[in-house]
């Protein structure tokens, strides 16, 4: 059957559009329902993060990192403090490390819950989204219990933490995990194995491993393409080397390796792994240790530079910090994993139907705050 080509129409998806996960503008060329070319336009949420950092002291950078990826603030803090501690050669005690890992993994669960839930919402499934939001709320309650904030925590400080764990946190976390584990299966059955959901995601938006690597895509999006690459395993920081967990990769169960369903399923599996990590970290958590012990009085790193990367829920989160010996950074650069994920959109989504393009965009799990910075 021949393909009928009509006149092309330029359509702006966004900046105000329910499926763009923030303020993103996709300029697409459409021929009926088929989309031939996608050009993302960024910068609607640009807040001069990197330039701001050059004018504030090192500890004042941490609240800015919160606001970059507002759905995973803990891991954003984590990446920055890991970089700073490497630059200043600070060794923090084990209690701090374990608390950081617990927080980062709880944050990963919360972030993946929102990512998978919103992905369902993009496909028209409203109920799983609200179920996810309900469970995410409990994690946020745990964070609120710890540091008082529900979204932007400013919890991890260079050389320590802002607060020690409050009384009852460990019990509350274990109670949450007991409640939460059956819910993952429920969610997998409700959305993941739904016939319509599989039809909409399997074999759609396939990202082969070499494309993912060439574009610098990292995190769950890369692992869904079948590449076993997780910084927690391959370049262990903090105490991840002492913890036992698997790195789920895409296997193409419902379709091809690297399709939208795989990206969804890898995130779901990572939630399970994170639950495992939190349980182990709580078991191994040292009873004593001052969380302010290694905190320097004045943060003034020696002249030099550092590039350090950690695994955020969206992928390799890199911080490049250059110090000139003063108490403000000379230059600070953040490598955003969501930015590279958005870069690959035209490659994997061009030529699909309109509904598919928005589904693929949802499966990449971008956060515009981090892309625009």
């Amino acid at each position, binding site marked *: 059957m021949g393909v009928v080509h009509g006149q092309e129409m330029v*359509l702006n998806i966004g900046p105000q559009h329910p499926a763009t996960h923030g303020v993103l503008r996709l300029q697409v060329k459409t021929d009926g329902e088929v989309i031939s070319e996608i050009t993302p336009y960024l910068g609607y949420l640009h807040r001069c993060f990197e330039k701001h950092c050059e004018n504030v002291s090192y500890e004042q950078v941490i609240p800015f990192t919160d606001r970059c990826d507002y759905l995973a603030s803990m891991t954003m803090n984590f990446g920055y403090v890991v970089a700073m501690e490497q630059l200043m050669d600070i060794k923090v005690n084990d209690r701090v490390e374990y608390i950081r890992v617990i927080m980062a993994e709880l944050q990963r669960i919360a972030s993946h819950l929102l990512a998978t839930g919103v992905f*369902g919402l993009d496909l*028209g499934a409203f*109920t799983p989204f609200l179920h996810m939001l309900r469970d995410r709320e409990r994690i946020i309650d745990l964070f609120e219990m710890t540091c008082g904030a529900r979204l932007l925590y400013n919890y991890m400080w260079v050389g320590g933490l802002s607060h020690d764990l409050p009384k009852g946190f460990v019990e509350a976390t274990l109670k949450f995990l007991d409640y939460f584990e059956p819910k993952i299966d429920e969610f997998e059955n409700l959305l993941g194995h739904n016939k319509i959901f599989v*039809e*909409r995601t399997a074999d759609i938006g396939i990202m082969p491993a070499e494309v993912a690597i060439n574009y610098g895509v990292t995190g769950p999006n890369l692992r869904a393409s079948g590449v076993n690459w997780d910084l927690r395993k391959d370049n262990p920081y903090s105490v991840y080397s002492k913890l036992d967990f698997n790195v789920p990769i895409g296997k193409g169960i419902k379709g091809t390796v690297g399709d939208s369903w795989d990206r969804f399923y890898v995130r779901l599996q990572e939630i399970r792994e994170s639950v495992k990590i939190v349980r182990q970290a709580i078991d191994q958590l040292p009873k004593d240790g001052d969380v302010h012990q290694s905190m320097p009085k004045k943060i003034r790193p020696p002249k030099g530079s550092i590039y350090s990367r950690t695994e955020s829920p969206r992928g390799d989160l890199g911080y490049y910090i250059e110090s000139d010996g003063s108490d403000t950074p000379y230059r600070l650069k953040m490598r955003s994993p969501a930015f590279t994920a958005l870069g690959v959109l035209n490659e994997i989504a061009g030529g699909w139907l309109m509904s598919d393009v928005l589904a693929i965009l949802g499966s990449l799990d971008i956060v515009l705050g981090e892309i625009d910075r």
Partner: protein
Amino acid sequence: MTVDFIFEFLSGLLDGFISSNSLLIISMLVPCLAIFGFITVYALVVIYAELKVSSFIQDKVGPMGQGVGLHAGKWGLLQPIADALKLLLKEDIIPSSADKPLFILAPFMIFIGAFISFIAIPFGESIIVTDLNIGIFYILGVGSIAVLSLILAGWASNNKWSLYGGMRSAAQIVSYEIPAGLSLIVVIMLAGTLNMQDIIKYQAGGIFNWIIFDNPFVPIAFVVYFISAIAETNRTPFDLPESESELVAGFATEYSGMRYAFFFLSEYANMFVVSAVAAAGFLGGWHSPIQGFMDSPAWGVFWMINKTGFLIFVMIWLRWTLPRLRVDQLMNVCWKVFLPLALINIFGVAIWTVVFNS
């Protein structure tokens, strides 16, 4: 309760006071107002049901409130009224580049389509506005007016999203009318009539005389009809014309306030019409499931409303459970699955009737 009945009743009452022509107009207006009142009250109830059912499915409480003041009343009972008032009080916006006459016409047309379907829906043995001899055919026919309105709305808004919504709805509704119509042919074949009341009377005598239990092919026809009906009313998983996460609001993107309320009202009115046709055609209409049990004319209204209400509940249930299909998958399901199934059903029922019932 037909128009003739009201006419005779009124002419007996007001004989000599008014001319018979104006009496005829009055006797036509009475059922119109009754239907309009019914649709309005029913829409408020179903909007409340939709809010509450979705809340229970999603593990939240939905509209709640106690006492007077700015609360939504006990258990949020006043929420649909507040919603309706909000829509009525909103500013009426017509985009400057829109095709004004068509833009204004579209919401009325969709409402007319839903509204005039109601006159052939039987609520009881004698409670029907006009007992047309082609009732079921008439409902299918006027139901198609909706698609014209959606195309008009999509085109006249002069908005790309609206245009997408309008084109999708044109393809979708026209396609799904075919399996829906073919499934109803099964009912017509069995009952041997197009008259709604006669179709229901054919199913008298308890649950096993309902057409759905007539032979093994009819349940399939019922499922095909019901799914096609959901597609015709543009509800999830078939809400492509207004899919909010893709097309913003589809054909309704530029509509607000009162005009949007008409689209909203028509969607719920259409849900009632298609469910009522399913209830009358397959589930015994106003007959009680057990012969002789609560089977008086007054209970007929109860059974009809409840059977329809149950089907509407199933629609709400599906909406809040399933994701949305893609536009080509939607067409595949219609042309490659439902259409062959509906045709096989017709042959199957015909053969079954000849072999077993003759």
